[in-house]
């Protein structure tokens, strides 16, 4: 984030809006997925922990989408942005919309994104936009806790039983391709970096990879080969899962438009 004061000032309203929505969508959609677990987790402790992570992420999403609505200046609220946009308007990372499948897949998804958010929020604290910096400081503390939970389970499952190892390795193999999006150029986060709003996505890779590799080693898991996957949620390219998730999430607001709840 080495943008000069001049570029900082030029970070347009539109860009700040889109960046806030991108980060907010990622937290929101992941919160929605984790919310599906509540009442159904493998044990009571995990149920509470997943609910907790969902709550933190939902808090981030509300902060970011409210801010986005505010700077957009068209009177859209956090709820308008969450419930009244079409799937193709969402710019969350595609990883977070992937289904829960089982606890193993859920933990892999969480671990990969936690490790990324650790780096993201660390850097975002230095954003030229105080609102992003403020969010990042709070979210970083939360993410450290999430990461402790998810990396702990990566190790327990990877280095647990034969079955748990197999399941979590499958989850890893299945979800790995979505991590290429974290660091890929050509989307709003790159623009945001150029304007000093946030970190250059590519710059997060080294620390993320080192972190992930260390945990995978401890978990006796095999790091999947990198593939050139290029369908990115942050470029509005989503899997089929997102529209199903949104159909459920948005149903009430779509059915009763303009109503207070």
């Amino acid at each position: 984030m080495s943008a000069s004061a001049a570029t900082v000032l030029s970070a347009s309203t539109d860009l700040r809006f889109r960046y806030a929505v991108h980060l907010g969508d990622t937290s929101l959609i992941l919160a929605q997925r984790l919310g599906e677990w509540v009442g159904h987790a493998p044990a009571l402790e995990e149920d509470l922990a997943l609910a907790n992570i969902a709550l933190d992420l939902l808090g981030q999403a509300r902060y970011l989408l409210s801010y986005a609505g505010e700077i957009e200046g068209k009177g859209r609220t956090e709820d308008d942005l969450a419930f009244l946009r079409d799937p193709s308007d969402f710019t969350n990372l595609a990883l977070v919309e992937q289904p829960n499948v089982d606890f193993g897949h859920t933990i892999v998804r969480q671990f990969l994104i936690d490790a990324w958010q650790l780096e993201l929020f660390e850097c975002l604290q230095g954003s030229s936009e105080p609102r992003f910096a403020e969010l990042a400081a709070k979210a970083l503390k939360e993410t450290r806790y999430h990461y402790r939970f998810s990396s702990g389970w990566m190790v327990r499952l990877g280095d647990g039983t034969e079955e748990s190892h197999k399941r979590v390795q499958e989850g890893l193999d299945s979800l790995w391709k979505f991590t290429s999006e974290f660091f890929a150029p050509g989307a709003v986060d790159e623009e945001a970096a150029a304007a000093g709003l946030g970190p250059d996505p590519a710059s997060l890779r080294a620390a993320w990879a080192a972190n992930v590799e260390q945990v995978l080693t401890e978990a006796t898991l095999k790091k999947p080969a990198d593939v050139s996957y290029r369908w990115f949620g942050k470029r509005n390219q989503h899997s089929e899962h997102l529209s199903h998730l949104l159909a459920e999430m948005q149903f009430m607001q779509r059915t009763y438009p303009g109503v207070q709840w």
Partner: protein
Amino acid sequence: VTLEQRFQSKVDDDERIEPKDWMPDAYRQTLIRQISQHAHSEIVGMLPEGNWITRAPSLRRKAVLIAKVQDEGGHGMYLYSAAETLGISRDELLEQLLAGTAKYSSIFNYPTPTWADVGAIGWLVDGAAIMNQIPICRCSYGPYARAMVRICKEESFHQRQGFEIMMTLARGTPEQHRMAQDALNRWWWPSIMMFGPNDATSKHTAQSMRWKIKRFSNDELRQKFIDITVPQAEFLGLKVPDPDLRWDEATQHYIHGPIDWKEFEEVLKGNGPCNRERLETRRRAHDDGRWVREAALAHAEKQRARETQAA
């Protein structure tokens, strides 16, 4: 004096019984039954409201709802811990629940087809629960009483949230008002029945009163709940679905119509609208989670072995 007499006089003097104290076996068994039933209710009770987490109509409501359901899980944890002080493990208790031999509150065998049900549960079900639970904060058994203090505080918070949902709906659009009224229609009688059978037919009351596990009779608590709740319904502009309900000047109480105890018995027997679904859901979560719990154990075992080797 016998142990039993010493025990009873402590209870009579409003002293707390603690885990290491001597206690009659029947007292212990009654407490295990009651606390675990309460714990199971919290766990099963996560499901009807949890059903709306993914569809909550605003982000604020979604956050509040997740937090509430999470609190219920937390209550389950405190209560299982309280039960464990009486010499039974959480695993044993869970097994009883999943085997269908332990009870939980019948109210959670009713479905939540609409968002208004989340409001109605908070307002009525949590309201009735508080009525039942506040006296237990002064229960003779220390760990149970202390757990209940913490739980009651959170429950009354939930109850207010539920009431607020109902108020928003009742004062909202005609569809919302209709939704709220429909939920009240469906939850009123089951809530009334949460206090258990009439005193005349209730079997545990007398002994539990003597032991100060219970401090009011079912009918007393039910009456208290109705007296508080009917004016709230009026305030909301909703109609309580009891054509016989009337205010009685003489007793200064509301008189309610006859309760359909046959429905109560049926739901208790397992023939409620969701009995089978609730247990199946819990069983599926338990079965699907087995490999995870096994992995955690296996990993802990490996860690221990490595540490031993290192030492």
